């Protein structure tokens, strides 16, 4: 049902209309073709840099995914095994010279936005940069299987691998956005984190950088001669909203056209009630969990008095009514995962795995009447996670477990995790399209983000088997075994995996959302000429 206030909002737009008229008085305007649209995205934060190799946040990825290209992109089926399904981007074709050698042939039409051709030397330079510890890319570890990348001629580049495994092609193409060697070669790599290039990047993607007004907006313009085809939308603008609520408000007020995640059922309900918006559900790449610290709070040399005991950890999983909590907080938009997995890994949800069911009686038996107490750190900026912490606190209280909730801001939470000064933490994690990298990173004995110092040799061995499985079927079975091992000796409580829902203005057609890179397919979006507004026509 349309809310009562929706109609006056649409009518009472005299001043904006005046602005449009004024804009029409001056700018080129008059654009009436298929290639005129302007889409404004409400961004929940502001990028620090648009240099992909050192960027870390989702909003940075959203923007630089339009400016830079990979050699090939994951196809619509999201498959990461072998090279079937991958869609060519900078590479026109590829072949396996031998089982450990992959040769890419670049598209000769590809150009940097300054006019220089994209060459094999750029690809070799990019690999070198991503692998360089001085640059410090977050993707460096994912490229560990590749021994070298060398240019054979200006359009041919050869990747050599250390070993054979099913996701070789994925590793060669997914992690790196190809960078312009001629613009970055002379910039000292130790300064890339703060390089000027990151504030005014030059790429080879369908959109070129136009402007960045700090604290306000970032504007990109379509490359009308792009070799992969002219993008339909003429301008893309990211408007910095600062947080999720402001971003959703901007979209509901008609000041922005799209927001990539609505997160809460309330936001989804409000967006659904707005007739100007269309909702696009897609598989989420995030899962949320309580992590137990198996070492003493602040002293890694000692076991944790509570969580070192696997029986207690199991009891805490059994005592949490996760389906009810998910229903209470998210309604139909979240599932309880049977392991550390987001909904993005849809093929893993098809296994026979099921989340450990609620069993308070068994939990009580495992606790043997012990009275426990621990602190749970939660990011204060996430109302849903705070709500979850309170629900858990109440459920554990009934078993005589005292949970003290410490709401902290994100930098504090990260610092506590890295320094080991915590008992338990309520976290979310954004994953890659494959479990092979993020599962061992978080829960493997040597994982860089294994802040709870969880160690399970059986699980680690099963993860290695799963990551090396030759087919998706074999991988599915192996991951199933790995997650079953994890359920027996839980490192935490896997709480929920979200279904993402994006809201986009109805005048935008052909909207496709790539679950692992939300706005990755914007170049295929369009605004039909009969749907163009004066705002679309106005502009540079």
């Amino acid at each position, binding site marked *: 049902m349309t809310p009562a206030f929706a109609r006056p909002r649409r009518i009472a737009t005299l001043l904006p209309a005046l*602005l449009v008229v004024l804009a029409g008085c001056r700018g080129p305007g008059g654009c009436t073709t298929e290639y005129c649209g302007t889409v404004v995205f409400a961004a929940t934060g502001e990028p620090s840099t648009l240099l992909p190799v050192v960027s870390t946040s989702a909003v940075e990825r959203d923007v630089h995914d339009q400016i830079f290209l990979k050699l090939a992109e994951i196809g619509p089926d999201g498959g990461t095994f072998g090279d079937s399904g991958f869609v060519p981007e900078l590479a026109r074709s590829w072949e396996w010279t031998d089982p450990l050698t992959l040769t890419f042939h670049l598209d000769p039409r590809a150009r940097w936005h300054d006019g220089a051709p994209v060459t094999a030397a750029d690809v070799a330079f990019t690999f070198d940069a991503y692998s360089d510890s001085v640059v410090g*890319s977050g993707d460096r570890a994912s490229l560990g299987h590749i021994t070298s990348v060398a240019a054979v001629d200006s359009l041919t580049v050869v990747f050599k691998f250390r070993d054979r495994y099913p996701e070789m092609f994925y590793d060669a193409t997914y992690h790196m956005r190809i960078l312009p060697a001629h613009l970055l070669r002379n910039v000292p790599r130790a300064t890339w984190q703060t390089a000027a290039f990151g504030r005014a990047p030059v790429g080879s993607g369908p959109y070129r950088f136009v402007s960045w007004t700090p604290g306000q907006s970032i504007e990109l313009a379509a490359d009308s001669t792009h070799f992969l085809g002219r993008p339909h939308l003429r301008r893309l603008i990211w408007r910095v909203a600062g947080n999720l609520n*402001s971003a959703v408000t901007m979209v509901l007020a*008609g000041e922005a056209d799209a927001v990539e995640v609505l997160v809460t059922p309330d936001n989804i309900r409000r967006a659904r009630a707005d007739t100007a918006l269309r909702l696009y559900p897609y598989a989420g790449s995030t899962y949320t969990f309580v992590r137990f610290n198996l070492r003493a709070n602040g002293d890694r040399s000692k076991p944790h008095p509570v969580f070192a005991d696997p029986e207690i950890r199991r009891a805490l999983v059994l005592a949490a009514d996760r389906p009810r909590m998910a229903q209470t907080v998210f309604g139909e938009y979240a599932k309880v995962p049977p392991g550390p997995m987001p909904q993005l890994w849809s093929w893993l949800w098809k296994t026979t795995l099921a989340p450990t069911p609620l069993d308070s009686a068994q939990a009580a038996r495992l606790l043997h009447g012990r009275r426990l107490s621990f602190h749970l750190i939660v990011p204060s900026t996430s109302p849903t996670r705070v709500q979850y912490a309170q629900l858990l606190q109440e459920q554990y209280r009934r078993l005589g477990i005292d949970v003290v909730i410490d709401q902290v801001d994100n*930098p504090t939470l990260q610092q506590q995790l*890295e320094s080991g000064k915590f008992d338990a933490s309520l976290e979310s994690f954004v994953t890659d399209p494959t479990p092979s990298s993020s599962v061992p990173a978080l829960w493997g004995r040597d994982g860089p983000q294994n802040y709870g110092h969880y160690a399970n040799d059986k699980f680690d061995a099963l993860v290695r088997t799963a990551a090396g499985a030759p087919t998706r079927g074999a991988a599915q079975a192996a991951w199933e075994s790995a997650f079953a091992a994890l359920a027996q000796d839980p490192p935490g409580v896997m709480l929920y995996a979200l279904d993402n829902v994006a809201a986009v203005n109805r005048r935008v057609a052909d909207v496709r959302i790539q679950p692992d890179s939300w706005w990755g397919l914007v170049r295929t979006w369009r605004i039909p000429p009969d749907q163009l507004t004066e705002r679309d026509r106005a*502009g540079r």
Partner: protein
Amino acid sequence: MRAWLLRRVAAGIAIIFAAVSLTFVAIHLAPGEPFLPPDERPMDPAVVARLRRNYGLDRPLPVQYLRYVTQLAHGELGESFSQRRPVAQAIAAAVPNTLLLTITALAIDFTLGIAIGLYQAARARRRSDAALANVTLFFYSLPTFWLALVLQLVFGLWLGWFPTGGSTDPVLHDSLPLFGRVVDRLYHLALPALTLGLVGAGGTARFQRAALLEALGHEYVRTARAKGLAESAVLIRHAWRDALLPVISLAGVALPFLLTGAVLIETVFSWPGLGKLAADAISARDYPLVLGTTLLATCAVVTGSFIADVLTAAADPRVRLTA
């Protein structure tokens, strides 16, 4: 006069120095560190260590403090960790927005507040005075951020009369002629300035009413009335001038409130000013930017208080600027 001036300047420098020093210690001792992105892919610890080294964060706190003070003495504010550009540049971009917001809010605050105070004093103890007293008390006691959210919801989201955030229209602004750009600016300014102005006006009106009622009881007002002057002339030309002095002092005191209010307002309305810059800097543990914004805010408050003193002296010949 000169001695007073020197004393005020010395006190001002001391206050600024103390504020920056306290902020330096507080922000460095606060839990949390820069370069640790939340929830997304955490940075390589080696890179974090290198960045900490590059920015001197691996040195003992007193060394960092001395380095910062020396740098400050040379006019250097350092480089922002989160914005990856010089702090001076980030502040320079934000200051015009905050000035525009606070000056407009101040204008709304005092125009509306003084007008209401005058009206109330002229109709003291009547029904309209009582009603306005309740209204001004209501606005005076409102939390600024709450009023901001309500105005945003009603006039931005429900009625669609004003934008809910930002300082310009990112789609149209650059293609507008000068007049259009000014209109666009004012259009985006309306809600944030009104929020700050309304809350301030509630207090100013109550202050003005009390000062006027006091002034109206003075002998010279009775004399003016006895001379047969019209009541409006008595009120405006005689009593009001006297009652304006405490309100002028209030302007100097209002500046810190406006600046702190701007932090909340700018955050709610995504207004890219100094307040939002400071709030974002604190969230990101961007030490140089936090210190830079603190420095500027302290300077503004000290200057505001100084200007208020000078204005009071100008308006009241009885006040002398002496040490």
